[in-house]
């Protein structure tokens, strides 16, 4: 296996070719926050929390570390002032969608007491973990995105859901917003869900 060397936050890091910056950083004990990332799934790059700065030939740019592959000689900084500012804003935006556990922890990390943005009932954060887990790992495609822009949403396709979900339910614990279970139940239109005694 070909190894490459790069520099992350001043540390020399050796990693296998093909690993992402996130993987390389975590291996070196450097923490980068993520929301939409899961090691079992293909990089998605949607939450933008994992942005890091790379520089090459004096040119700097921000990339999603969960998706960008490590390159020989790359210089990476995972927490510049700008990155912190961006993460704080993203967390602030997400807190307005759903102020659940993982988000609150992030809020604390970035010194946010409350979001300046208007929120309401917790809503789906659209990280896509459930949709992608169902499609990529389970190959079931029960959950999917509908709509676009600010109308984007996640739904369970009820026909498939009724047969496949009661015996699986593996996506439910993945949800960072705490809204997936209620989305799942929507597919039953109030009818009792088989195996509901399992609970979540």
């Amino acid at each position, binding site marked *: 296996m070909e190894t490459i060397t790069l520099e992350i936050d001043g540390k020399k890091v050796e990693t296998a070719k093909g690993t992402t910056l996130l993987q390389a950083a975590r291996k070196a004990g450097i923490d980068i926050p993520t929301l939409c990332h899961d090691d079992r799934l293909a990089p998605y790059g949607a939450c933008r929390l994992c942005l890091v700065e790379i520089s090459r030939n004096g040119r700097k740019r921000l990339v999603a570390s969960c*998706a960008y592959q490590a390159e020989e000689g790359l210089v990476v900084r995972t927490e510049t002032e700008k990155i912190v500012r*961006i993460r704080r804003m993203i967390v602030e935006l997400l807190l307005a969608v759903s102020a659940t556990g993982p988000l609150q922890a992030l809020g604390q990390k970035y010194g946010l007491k409350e979001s300046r943005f208007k929120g309401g009932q917790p809503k789906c954060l659209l990280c*896509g973990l459930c949709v992608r887990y169902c499609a990529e790992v389970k190959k079931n495609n029960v959950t999917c995105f509908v709509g*676009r822009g*600010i109308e984007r949403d996640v739904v369970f396709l009820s026909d498939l859901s009724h047969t496949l979900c009661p015996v699986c339910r593996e996506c439910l614990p993945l949800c960072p917003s705490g809204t997936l279970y209620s989305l799942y139940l929507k597919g039953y239109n109030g009818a009792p869900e088989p195996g509901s005694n399992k609970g979540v």
Partner: protein
Amino acid sequence: MSKLNSAAELKKFRQDILAGRDADKLCVTICLGTGCLACKGDKVHDAFVEEIRRRGLEDRVDIRRTGCHGFCEQGPLVVVFPKEICYLKVTPADVPEIVAETLVGGKVVERLLYAGPDGRKIVHEGDIPFYKHQTRLILGPNRLIDPTRIEDYIALGGYSALAKALFVMTPVEVLDEVKRSGLRGRGGAGFPTGTKWETTRNAPGEPKYVIVNADEGDPGAYMNRSVLEGNPHSVLEGLIIGAYAIGAHEGFIYVRQEYPLAVANLTVALEQARGLGLLGDHILGSEFSFDVTIHRGAGAFVSGESSALMTAIEGRVGEPRLKYIRTAVSGLWEKPTNLNNVETWANVPAIVSKGAAWFNGIGTEGSKGTKIFSLVGKVRNTGLVEVPMGMTLRQVIFDIGGGVSGGKEFKAVQTGGPSGGCLPAGHLDLPVDFEELDKAGSMMGSGGMIVMDEDTCMVDTARYFVRFLSEESCGKCVPCREGLKQMLGLLDNICAGRGRDGDIELLEELGEVMTEASLCALGATAANPLLSTLKYFRGEYEAHIKEKRCPAGVCKDLIRYYIVPDKCQACQICARSCPAGAIAGDKGLVHVIDQAKCTKCGVCLEVCPSRFGAVTKISGRPVPAPVAAGTKVQKRK
């Protein structure tokens, strides 16, 4: 039609077409572009066919259906050759007169000519100020070509650039020529075209693909549409040449579903090109083979983004994806893929024919050639405008566009489509090219240009574009989706008079993060409308927030209509016109608007005779207490 098997056969084919034509013969050309069709251009065409048949003039007069001439506002356009007499706003009823006077009598029908602001009539299309200041390299041929007849394109020298590329130049020479020309992408980002081609050419992996981006999702933009509808072969020829330079044998034209005429004309163009051996196996008898498929897009704005477009052609939802490996290297089905805009491709044949040096001579240091703009909004002459890069905004808006319509003051021009920016009067002398527009906080985009007058509220304008983008974003990444949602909410509040201290700063902070952190260029540019209006019209935001005042008098929640008692002459027109029945008054009595009932439709202001000028808009201060019921008007002497 039999296939042409060499450059010489193409040349001969062209000579035969020209030999069969008489340059002095009368020819009536009728614009059947989408704009003119909407004004019943097809009825005008049918009337000419009928009238010419009725008078037995079929042998003496040709009729040609053409694509858009650009001056759609004045359509349907009719140009009579060889004298190039240009008639505007022609109706079927005008046709017998044109036939009798012009075709038979050789005279001009004065009343159908263009009249300048000074009333002077202009006979020739090219002398009309709208056209006179333009350089129509791409759009020019539209008026000479029936897009469903490949002969018309070949008669003008069409496909000779392809022949030159195939038989006189190597692919690398073609590539170098395009590189040296300085051509940059017309789809928005202005990426150097030759460099992009080279990346795809040199990228490992076969097959390679070339694609025409004809998604054109910007509201109000229709330059790509007019080129595809009016001169499809110019795009096709550019594409074939590009494929040859890049080493691609398969291409796609991604056209939005909403462009049926473009699809129809393209389909005919592809068939005719195949019939003549200009497309397909062994083009013009050479070793080079290439063919094209039309892909109809579902018409989402974001599908115009390169990775989204390719995902859509693959049959999945057109959503941008991470592009750390460029699509030029790994695009369609993960193969090297070169995507260019319609207008970019249409520039290629002339560059190959006339050479890089010729193209380089047009435009500015960093932006070469011409650019087509769709000039719309509060400007006298709206339509499609093609000018050399570097022309100033003032020249485009005032010399070509004829200035602001309705005698109003110029306030701003919005360039670059929904994610472009608004530039104020102080920037009118800005030369229009990629760098200058970027520096000013706007962008070239695909060439939208919306002129705004003094009656435009800039906060409301920003809100309009932010709403468009919030609906058209794919919704995948957080800064773009949640950022636009919150931005829209804040702007809604400000327009409704619920703005608070700190909103401006929050919007700025948010806009910056969207620009820096979004996944694709939609999100990265989505804050432009907001940031540019904040930069140049900050005072307007402050007035909305601090004084609850809309300076342009647009935001409904911040204005009240009020009848000035001293001026009201009790003509009763406003009371009769008010759809809400909110105006009380009687003969001889001062009229009063019931603010509780008023829906702020503004009809009273519109109908109040200007010699009275009694109805006014009030913003940022309370409405004076109503006069006592039964107050008599003060009649003017």
